[in-house]
């Protein structure tokens, strides 16, 4: 019941926000400026019946998820190496700082020169997610209990077992929090890259076209689609991570 109450409160708040949106759209009566949620829902319903819609969703999902997953595994691997060898941490430092500091638009333009528009969302999602995962995992490694490490040193515990039993539990909260932040970022930056690069067959291209043709209903509709996929992917991925860690504890 404790869980049900906040969920109910959130549902009521969301329903109120939708009602306010509907009333605002009705009061304004300018669908070009503010389309009503009911109209967005109708448009979403009709889009769902088109094969091209699912193809577009799959196209963007594959690329953005690939960029995220690449960054996820690369971030963990390089952070583990940096945690083990200080020299590597120092060698990685300029790259991580650069990726963190350079505006995403600069990377998009640069990548348009280097890569094809189809590869752009993969690379941009990767660039946005990688420093978050890397920095958080490294922080998790550094906050490992030194007394546990001393115990492992005394008992000459091999590095693989140290990683599983000591480092991974310490990394867990940092990794989960990093994934929570970066999953949303991957979608925002990935779609933004698709819009700027006008990646053919992507959600970003649909957004771009809705701007060109002043199709506000499509703009809102695709935005809702991005939010839904992003949230679903985030929930599923975090569930898998938590299950993975729970499985580890049963070793």
């Amino acid at each position, binding site marked *: 019941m404790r869980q049900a109450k906040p969920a109910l409160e959130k549902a009521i708040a969301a329903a109120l926000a939708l009602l306010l949106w509907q009333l605002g759209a009705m009061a304004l009566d300018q669908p070009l400026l503010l389309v009503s949620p009911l109209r967005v829902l109708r448009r979403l319903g009709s889009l769902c019946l088109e094969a091209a819609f699912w193809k577009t969703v799959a196209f963007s999902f594959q690329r953005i998820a690939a960029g995220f997953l690449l960054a996820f595994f690369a971030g963990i691997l390089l952070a583990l190496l940096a945690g083990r060898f200080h020299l590597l941490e120092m060698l990685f430092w300029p790259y991580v700082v650069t990726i963190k500091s350079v505006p995403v638009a600069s990377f998009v333009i640069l990548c348009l020169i280097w890569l094809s528009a189809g590869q752009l969302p993969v690379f941009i999602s990767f660039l946005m997610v990688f420093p978050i995962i890397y920095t958080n995992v490294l922080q998790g490694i550094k906050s490992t209990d030194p*007394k*546990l490490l*001393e*115990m*492992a*040193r*005394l*008992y*000459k*515990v*091999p590095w693989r*077992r140290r990683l599983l*039993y*000591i480092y991974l*539990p310490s990394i867990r909260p940092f990794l989960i929090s990093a994934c929570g932040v970066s999953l949303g970022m991957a979608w925002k930056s990935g779609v933004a890259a698709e819009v700027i690069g006008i990646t053919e067959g992507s959600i970003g291209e649909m957004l771009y076209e809705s701007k060109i043709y002043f199709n506000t209903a499509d703009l809102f509709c695709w935005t809702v689609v991005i939010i839904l996929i992003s949230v679903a992917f985030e929930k599923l991925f975090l569930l898998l991570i938590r299950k993975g860690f729970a499985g580890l*504890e049963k*070793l």
Partner: protein
Amino acid sequence: MNEIRLENIHKSFDGKRVLAGFQAAFPAGQATCIMGSSGCGKTTLLNILLGLLPPDEGRVLGMPERVGAVFQEDRLCEDFSPLSNIRLVTGRRVPRAVILEHLKALGLEDWALAPVRTLSGGMKRRVAIARAVLYGGDVLVLDEAFKGLDEKTKAITMEYVRENTRGKTLIAVTHDGEEAAFWGGAPIKMEALP
């Protein structure tokens, strides 16, 4: 197995002398207690003995490669079970059945697979003790290992340690005269430096 000797050990922290010219010998295959008031440097001495802390001066002789230790803190991986915590240090060298037998001897059979974070302080202590015993070195170092255990559990646990470390060198830091008498031999008395 050789006698373990500490020769002319000096150690200071931020200019405060903790050990100055400390000498001691721990006979092989016997138990030796170290007694002394709080802050006199007993834990520092054990850390030097275990190779976890370098002395400023002096040397440790005869310490073997494999040494089991129970620290003042339990130093267990809280998310893992007692079985996994022991496996962490023993690997597959000690069969699962043997580990479970040891946990049973310490009254932990029902908790062998539960996450350590769900165990009481006394249970955690016993897991740390079983881990040090099962590691199987020639030397076992105990730093107030039985502190916090009730009288009955303490007696059972001390007997368990004695049974499973026969013929090994045991070095125990304690404040408890009864515990020192249990291990036998002449205790080494330490005093805080002025």
